[in-house]
């Protein structure tokens, strides 16, 4: 599972990055990480990840803006986006619905579920 797939993790919380990185690597994914939205945006361009996991509340550039700015890229090169947030607000649900291949996940999150969601996406996109 996870062979050759690259996942970009964008979060300003080092613990979360560490846990997500470990889980993904163990499953065989390549992992690259960014500490804020601005860095994340650059890495979506330079690393061309197959999936991104991003926080909403982040310094420099928030997750919502990041998703909205990168959504158009998915037409050419689809990738999964998992948006993690502390409290899912109705507003979050609304804008996430407008995005392609984008899922919402509430924090505190379950690493098992996060991994399941990513695995599932690649299973679907391959079949």
């Amino acid at each position, binding site marked *: 599972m996870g062979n050759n797939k690259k996942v970009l993790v964008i979060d300003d919380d080092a613990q979360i990055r560490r846990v997500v990185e*470990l889980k993904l690597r163990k499953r065989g994914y390549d992992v690259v990480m960014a500490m804020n939205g601005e860095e994340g945006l650059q890495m979506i361009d330079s690393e061309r990840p197959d999936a991104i996991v991003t926080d909403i509340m982040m310094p420099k550039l928030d997750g919502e803006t990041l998703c909205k700015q990168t959504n158009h890229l998915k037409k050419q090169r689809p990738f999964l986006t998992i948006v993690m947030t502390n409290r899912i607000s109705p507003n979050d649900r609304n804008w996430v619905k407008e995005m392609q291949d984008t899922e919402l996940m509430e924090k505190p999150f*379950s690493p098992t579920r996060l991994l399941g969601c990513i695995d599932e996406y690649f299973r679907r996109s391959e079949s």
Partner: protein
Amino acid sequence: MRRMDQLHGFLSSLSSLIPLDFQIWDADGLVYSSDNGAKGSHLTEQQAFSAKVMNQAIYQSNSHNGQAPMFGMPINYGQEVIGSLIASGHNAHLVGRSEDSPQPRIYDDKRMKPFLTHLAGLAGETWANRNEIEAVAEELSLSFEDLSLYARISTHMRSLQFSEEMLKALVKELQETLRVDLAFIELPDREEYNAIVAGRELQERVSDQEAFAHNLIQSIPAQAPSLEQDYFIVNDSSTMPGYRELHPEPYRFLAVRVAHDATFDGWLGLVSFKLEEHFRQSELRLLQSMAKQISALLANVDLYHELEKFVINMVKSLVFAIEAKDVYTRGHSERVNRYAMLMAERLQLDKTQQDILNWASILHDIGKIGVPGSILNKPAGLNEEEFNVIKGHSKKGHDILAPLEQLASCLPGILHHHERVDGKGYPHGLKGEEIPFLARIIAVADTFDAITSNRAYRPAKAAEKALAVIKEVAGTQLDPKVVKAFKEVFETTLKAEFETSHDE
């Protein structure tokens, strides 16, 4: 052994500077090699050499036996040998070169041993660091798992509506998040709340999951010391008589009492066939606090039902009290209630409104308790004063019930059930839409029953005729919309009933 990128890079660079190849082996095979084109036969030889190094757990070399020189050092993690570091000459022409060769003589044990000791020490340290970081991260990941479970479970618990669905959802959360094969709750005296959720693998292994769960609980030894802390755990069923027999494959089992204070309701249980994992302390604590909360919620449900029953019984005796006084209206409250509810369905009132109407219609005449029996049962010819006393009953009913919080929502229906849409009713003379909708429904049902039943001040009329009267007063006394609904209910349901009971 896991990959150690920095160390591997270092060894590769080193190999390009000095005439040595490096390999790292562990019990499963080759982990790293600085020589990408290593040959098959050579590899077999190296593997055997590596096995020897790991088995004997000390420095080994074969530089003196005329073979390709090989040197090996065990890699340790604490007391344990986790792998081996092998160095071998990588220039074939160096093999077997004589003692007085001009080549740098790095292939002797005196130099190789301390060199490899440091290198293997570095590898062991790197591995230990990686290992510890991963263990901490894994631990952290489990705490994340716990936190997420806590958060989701407390969301479920926060909803006040305790139901079978809620318990089912809780048990499902447990099964999924704790990654167990079976999660269940068994409440012997409240079987309607029992819930059981099995993962796919267990569904194949156990056909009757309820019986399996039940047997697990039944097998808990009454004297188990952990029961003092309200739990019982089996880490490996194959070592546990009583549990071994329940399934041929070994499993682990954790059960927690659903109980609070002195009340015992049942058990919450988890089963997993993955013996390589174990139940964690945090899972036990979570389960215990959940079980306690469930038990407290169950007690609340009981209290709520008791309160509800009390209110229902009280209402019944109130209704009985009016009917005991007013002999001519026996059964009136029930009939008005029935007509009103038929209309409510026709008018598609929501569940809450129907509940309110249910209470309001059965209690609409409760105020007659305050009307003297002499007036109530007078066959005919009430004077104005007496009539005013009768008219006071809707206000009185309102006042009698006002202190009961649970019935607050049905007060408007009772107070205004004698209002008329033309504003000529009582007690407030409200007009049309000003009259609460539920009161307008009760008014139609009340009027119909007043005409059809055998009242002291009016002879019985045929139901058809009563309907004709009602249609006539639609728009003056009664709300035409409600009258229309009643007409439909009459045609579909009531008409046939009146026809069959006509001769009795």
